[in-house]
């Protein structure tokens, strides 16, 4: 318990260091642009591929589980839309990003720690936590909502394609379904969750990497911890935010 509280305290002190006033704004701006590409743009492909297949599977499973004349066919489109918007595009995508981006951040910063690159920054008088991590947090906060929107669009498209090609639903019924009883607030809810998850993934992973002590083995362990802790916190905050935002 004491170890847990120590780590929590250390995490908040780390965040204080991360959010200290930047040394030179132009350098931070360049770093943020670089991270937007590495952490954001390079994640768009995996999110699009997974969203496409998730949308397809949701449509087919909903269709096979609602083979009853009582249920109107357009419910398949509606089910696909709500599943993608409410859970897949934010929570499932965040879990995927915790694996991809989280482990990347943790191992990158952890390697910099064990090879004394962070010490080199500190010696120069650079706030290493802020210089290395703040641009990553800003980049993910800016770009993850875009990834969420990409997930929503591609996921619903995947559902439509799978449904119409397999013949479980007509194109008209699917499109009617995704328009039926649409609540725009669900998109806002999804984007708010995404912002929280982006912060969790980046800050937890960076924290794990920043305090690595040892060698390559410890960097690997930090990477694993980053993914596990980020995933648990994402699931926990998913429950809390859902209760707060949808109740």
């Amino acid at each position, binding site marked *: 318990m004491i170890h847990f509280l120590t780590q929590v305290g250390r995490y908040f002190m780390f965040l204080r260091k991360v959010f200290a006033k930047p*040394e*030179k704004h132009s*350098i931070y701006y360049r770093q943020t642009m670089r991270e937007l590409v590495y952490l954001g743009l390079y994640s768009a492909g995996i999110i699009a591929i997974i969203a496409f297949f998730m949308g397809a599977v949701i449509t087919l499973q909903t269709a096979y589980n609602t083979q009853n004349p009582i249920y109107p066919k357009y419910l398949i489109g509606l089910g696909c839309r709500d599943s993608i918007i409410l859970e897949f595009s934010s929570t499932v995508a965040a879990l995927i990003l915790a694996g991809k981006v989280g482990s990347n951040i943790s191992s990158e910063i952890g*390697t*910099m720690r064990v*090879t*004394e*690159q962070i*010490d*080199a920054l*500190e*010696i*120069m*008088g*650079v*706030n290493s936590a802020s210089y290395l991590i703040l641009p990553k947090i800003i980049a993910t906060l800016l770009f993850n909502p875009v990834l969420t929107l990409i997930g929503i669009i591609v996921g619903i498209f995947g559902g439509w394609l799978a449904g119409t090609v397999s013949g479980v639903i007509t194109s008209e019924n699917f499109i009617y379904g995704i328009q039926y009883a649409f609540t725009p607030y669900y998109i806002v809810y999804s984007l708010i969750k995404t912002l929280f998850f982006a912060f969790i993934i980046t800050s937890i992973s960076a924290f794990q990497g920043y305090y690595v002590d040892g060698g390559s083995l410890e960097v690997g362990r930090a990477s694993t911890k980053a993914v596990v802790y980020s995933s648990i916190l994402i699931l926990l905050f998913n429950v809390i935010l859902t209760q707060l935002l949808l109740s």
Partner: protein
Amino acid sequence: MITVKNLSKSFNGKKVLDDISVTFETGKTNLIIGMSGSGKTVLLKSIVGLHEIDSGEIWFEDTLFSELNFTDRKEIRTEIGMLFQGSALFDSKTVEQNVRFPLDMFTNKTPKEKNERVNFCLNRVNIVKANKLFPAELSGGMKKRVAIARAIALNPKYLFCDEPNSGLDPITAILIDALIKELTEEYSMTTIVNTHDMNSVMEIGEKIIFISNGVKCWEGNKDEILHSDCSTLNDFVFANSLAKKLKAAK
């Protein structure tokens, strides 16, 4: 000049440095020598503030560095260049970007002035046609030289080198030592070098302190080191069979 007074440092209750006092002089190559695990690197990192000390004082000229907070230390840190054991070049940056980094961060020079300074520093350490290479594409000796170029980019007053020739062949090691000595004299820096290489000691040791088990055992220069009556130091200096034979012959 850097003055260390009664410095002690422990890790998890284990004392690594015990009551070390020493003065490192300006314009000289000051060496900290000792066996692996004797506390050399901890001493060096404590002096530059990478480790917070338990007790004692560290003075950079008239400034009590050990009592300053991170923000107040920044001014002195811009006057410090450091060469790490593993070079610590930034993997994601090219040679040129590595050397330019402190200039980007702490100066308001124009891009042309920065380029000129980068090229000057790289030429000074004999690195040519490697500006666009990444650290992974360089040999060990080249990495050390680029790290030295980065360390001197801001014209530092203090240069710290942690095992500058570890992992290098004897000829490259001598070249690196000679470069450190030349730069120290040229820019009148206070240079502190951590080493356990006796070749370095005999090449560049203008002032030497010997540490054993975290305690300063001996202080002198390269001429005095061969005539010391400190048994621990003699065991260290005459550890290899060639040195033993030479001593016996003498």
